[in-house]
């Protein structure tokens, strides 16, 4: 992981100097989602004059949207790679010529992440909302603490059996506030992807709270 910061070296890596800024990403960042973010930007920046940039960035963005929703097919990745190459070579100006870079490099270095979204409906970084859920581990949840319940913006958390808190997935908007609110000594809230690995929710607590 050592690379000198100069034009040639960055170009080799599939990146470019740009304004000289650098974004540091880690394993909590989904590479397909990062590519989608940059494509959304370039697609909005495209002036619309030439065909590859005007329509190609839109088509690529559509595929990336599908990938991050788990709705893409494996052959869409081939289309994405082909489109990216052609838009890089075929566009009129350097906006279109560089717009596919995030796709080409993430496909080069992180193709497995794309495939996980498609084949397993799993976002390895647990970042793509349609493919992940927040879950409270009942064995870690502290009976007397209701920090998450109070902080939930949509009142999606209820008290379940043994006073463990439970997220109602049909109400949850995946804002992540509860994960931040859960005190570090309990650390009871986790992200789960794919959704098929989400354990069945505990039933609500029947009896009324004893503290009344």
């Amino acid at each position, binding site marked *: 992981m050592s690379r000198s910061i100069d034009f040639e070296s960055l170009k080799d890596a599939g990146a470019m100097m740009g304004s000289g800024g650098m974004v540091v990403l880690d394993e909590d960042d989904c590479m397909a989602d990062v590519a989608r973010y940059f494509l959304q930007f370039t*697609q*909005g*920046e*495209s*002036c*619309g*004059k*030439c*065909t*590859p940039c*005007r*329509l*190609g*960035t*839109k*088509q690529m963005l*559509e595929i990336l949207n599908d990938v991050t929703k788990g709705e893409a097919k494996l*052959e*869409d990745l081939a*289309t994405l790679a*082909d*489109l990216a190459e*052609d*838009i890089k*070579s*075929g*566009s*009129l100006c350097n906006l279109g010529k560089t717009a596919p870079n995030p796709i080409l490099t993430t496909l080069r270095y992180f193709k497995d992440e794309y495939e996980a979204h498609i084949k397993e409906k799993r976002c390895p970084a647990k970042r793509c909302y349609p493919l992940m859920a927040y879950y409270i581990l009942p064995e870690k949840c502290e009976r007397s603490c209701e920090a998450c319940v109070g902080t939930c913006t949509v009142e999606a958390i209820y008290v379940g059996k043994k006073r463990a808190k439970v997220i109602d997935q049909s109400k949850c908007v995946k804002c992540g506030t509860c994960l931040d609110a859960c005190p570090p000594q309990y650390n009871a809230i986790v992200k789960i992807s794919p959704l098929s690995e989400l354990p069945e929710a505990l039933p609500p607590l029947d009896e009324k709270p004893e503290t009344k």
Partner: protein
Amino acid sequence: MKEVSLTIDGNPITAPEGRTVLWAALDAGVYIPNLCAIRELEEPQASCRLCFVEIEGKNAPVTACTEPVREGMVVNTKGLGATRLARTSLELLLASHNVDCARCAANGRCELQRAAKHLGIKLKSKRLKKLLPDLPIDSSSPVFVFDPNKCVLCGKCVWKCREKGIGAIGFAHRGFERRLTAFGGQPIGQSKCGNCLECVSVCPVGALVPKEDFNKARERGRNKEQS
């Protein structure tokens, strides 16, 4: 003017110095797909990205409309690299074009059909999503109809309208939202359009068609569906 000799697909041709490869080829009867090329323009628009060709000595395909002819130039219009780029551009255009040939007034003389046939591209893309601008047809003009879902944004009509000194239409918005419109988005019929039909005469597809032809084509399509 000095004449320059070059070969296109193995055929020797001559063209006046300063001419671009695209016009040299078209004048010599060699078809290179194009939508936005306007002979009178000094600076080509180079926006449709269909006229890619390969030139000996250059390591990447170039657009024929921006490449001036040179003595001894060897042009290949059928190279794999060039046709791949042209095909992708055309496929993108077709994926955002309301392919409704049976009910279209331009059926048979449409440049998209011609390019698709030449490049061996199906009118309905298998790998791309259909992404139409989904805008209403503008039939406000008494003499022609504008269908934004068929427009390929070649810019010929805009150029023609300005050349005539009218300037009723132009492009607005950016990226995928880019579209042909009259000032302020008003219907063309309410703009300063003088109904000269010059824009219609240069439209390479069925986006701008005479009202009469539009209605006839609709009728024809309807009859075909019924029978």
